[in-house]
């Protein structure tokens, strides 16, 4: 087990600047998820950490040693790949034992460890099968088994669940989380899926164009995004963004939309807000609720809207309406709205909304 430290990593692919000066400190035993849209450099970073990709500048430390010039085999890491990377001509047992054989473990030790790993993942009765005889989920278990069977210092996961269907992905997510809790190893996990990032991570590192946009605990990042990109990336359905302008009225500051509607900002959130300023108003779907007349609660602002689209999911119903010409989605309770065309009063939780500078895309408030 070991900490991992990246200092000012740079990576070019010809003209393309894939990784731009990334520094990251991953404490021992932490589950870090590197997340971002495709092409943001997250896989490059992970592969650099594994030694499969050379970096152009910076240092990588595992434990207390700089591993820049170390071959992958000497870094003592384990890695799980998106397409499983199982050897089709070896059975499950040999696939899991492959890394132990490379490191010259005695055969009885190999047997014990392989069976231990197989037990942990529930694949003991598949040990003599070939990979092609397994389902996608079983294959990924074998791939994970191959990683955990060694006492690697760091575990790397490169989008391990992307090839699985939605249901299996949820199951495996739970297993990976449990594995981390049981083993307590340092794990670095790369994904483009924000749900995986939110559910698995002790800490999320959100990359964009080869740079860290924001890092932190999942809920911190969800509740306090630094930019429009972070606010929009985390959360599903993603946050609504509506262009607006700040206006002063009766001693308070309102968020005024182009169609004449406006919402008052709570008095404790107005410092530094100048009237007249252009902003982007960001509100999550779950922070718009049906107005049931609880107007006394601080920070709730009501608007009357006409619902033009509803999507019931069973537990909740997504209702879409127009605000300043933009479609806005609210996550209401299942029976809050029955059919499109209904007029409703909705509460906006102004304590939870964000205001974004349209020039810089950074969150102001």
């Amino acid at each position: 087990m070991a900490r991992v430290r990246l200092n000012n990593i740079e990576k070019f692919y010809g003209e393309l600047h894939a990784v731009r000066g990334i520094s990251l400190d991953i404490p021992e035993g932490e589950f870090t998820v590197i997340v971002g849209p495709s092409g943001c450099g997250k896989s490059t970073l992970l592969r650099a950490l594994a030694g499969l990709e050379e970096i152009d500048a910076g240092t990588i430390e595992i434990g207390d040693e700089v591993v820049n010039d170390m071959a992958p085999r000497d870094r003592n890491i384990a890695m799980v790949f998106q397409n499983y990377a199982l050897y089709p001509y070896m059975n499950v047992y040999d696939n899991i034992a492959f890394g132990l054989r490379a490191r010259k473990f005695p055969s009885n030790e190999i047997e014990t460890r392989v069976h231990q790993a197989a037990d942990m993942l529930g694949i003991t009765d598949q040990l003599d099968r070939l990979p092609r005889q397994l389902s996608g989920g079983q294959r990924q278990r074998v791939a994970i088994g191959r990683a955990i069977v060694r006492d690697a210092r760091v575990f790397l996961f490169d989008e391990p669940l992307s090839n699985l269907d939605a249901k299996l992905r949820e199951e495996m997510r739970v297993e990976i989380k449990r594995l981390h809790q049981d083993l307590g190893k340092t794990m670095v996990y790369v994904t483009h899926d924000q749900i995986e990032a939110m559910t698995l991570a002790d800490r999320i590192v959100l990359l964009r164009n080869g740079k860290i946009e924001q890092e932190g605990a999942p809920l911190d990042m969800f509740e306090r995004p630094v930019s429009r990109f972070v606010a929009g990336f985390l959360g599903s359905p993603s946050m609504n963004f509506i262009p607006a302008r700040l206006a002063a009225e009766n001693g308070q500051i309102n968020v005024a939309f182009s169609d004449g509607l406006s919402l008052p900002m709570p008095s404790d959130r107005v410092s530094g807000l100048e009237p007249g300023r252009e902003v982007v108003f960001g509100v999550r779907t779950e922070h718009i609720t049906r107005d049931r007349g609880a107007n006394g609660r601080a920070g709730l602002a009501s608007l009357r809207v006409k619902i033009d689209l509803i999507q019931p999911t069973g537990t909740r119903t997504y209702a879409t309406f127009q605000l300043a010409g933009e479609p806005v989605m609210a996550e209401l309770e299942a029976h809050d709205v029955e059919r499109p065309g209904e007029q409703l009063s909705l509460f906006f939780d102004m304590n939870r909304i964000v205001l974004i500078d349209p020039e810089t895309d950074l969150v102001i408030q």
Partner: protein
Amino acid sequence: MTAVSVQQPLGVASSKGWWARKANRRLVVRYIVATIVTIIFLFPVYWLFIMAFKTPEEVFASPPVWLPSDFSLDGFVELFRDGDVNTVMNSLITAGTSTVFAMFFGTIAAYSLARFKTGGDNLAIWIISQRMIPPITIVFPLFLMYALLGWIDSFHGLILLYTAFNLPYVIWMMRGYIEDIPIELEHSALVDGWTRWQVLWRVVFPMARAGLFATAVFTFIFAWNDFIFALILSRTEVTTFPVQMTRFFGHQQTFWGKIGAMSVIGTLPIFFAVAAMQRFIVRGISMGAVKG
């Protein structure tokens, strides 16, 4: 096919019975056509083999002798008595050894081209272009070089030449097969603790097995069938069997029995190689066809 085996109850003249009979007739026609085509294609092979067992008179008999009167092994006996079979041995040694060398070095080079992008895209094209040179254009300069080095009529001379001549083919083919292997398999093995060479041995070779066998068989066949290099660069010591064959056409006499017998012997290694590796070759060829 299933319609053919359907048993109709007696006295039931259903439309299904009519269909079954029609399908049956179609099948018979197909078999007849297939048999005729097979006979046409196999006839030259048959004629070659049968010549080995004929007496000299039977070779030229008119009307032709379809089956020799007795299966005379004289041709084979003469080949062994006169030492002509040594040339088959020479062919086996030169073709076999050069195949091993070409496969080994070619596969390593192909790995380098495929995985490290050695020389970019142009080097691979340049390498395969070497294969396109007509052998006859380089054989006389080579003769002069070999004469200078004293390599004429030597095993190492021919083996080196066949290796060099087949390398581009091996590199080109193996590059395609190696590129088809998911690179994650190799990455996983590297992370697991194997060295590059071990990865080559334990991951790349097993994964490219079909391609390796197919390429090796073709490489062997190219060397086995070579005539022009062996003709110019050998004298009496390291004569290969195609060259020896021409010597059976004498000024006074043509040894048809020997020609037939030698043809049979010369075909056998290829026949067995292809038969033994048929499974791999078909897979190997189609694998390369998809990509590479």
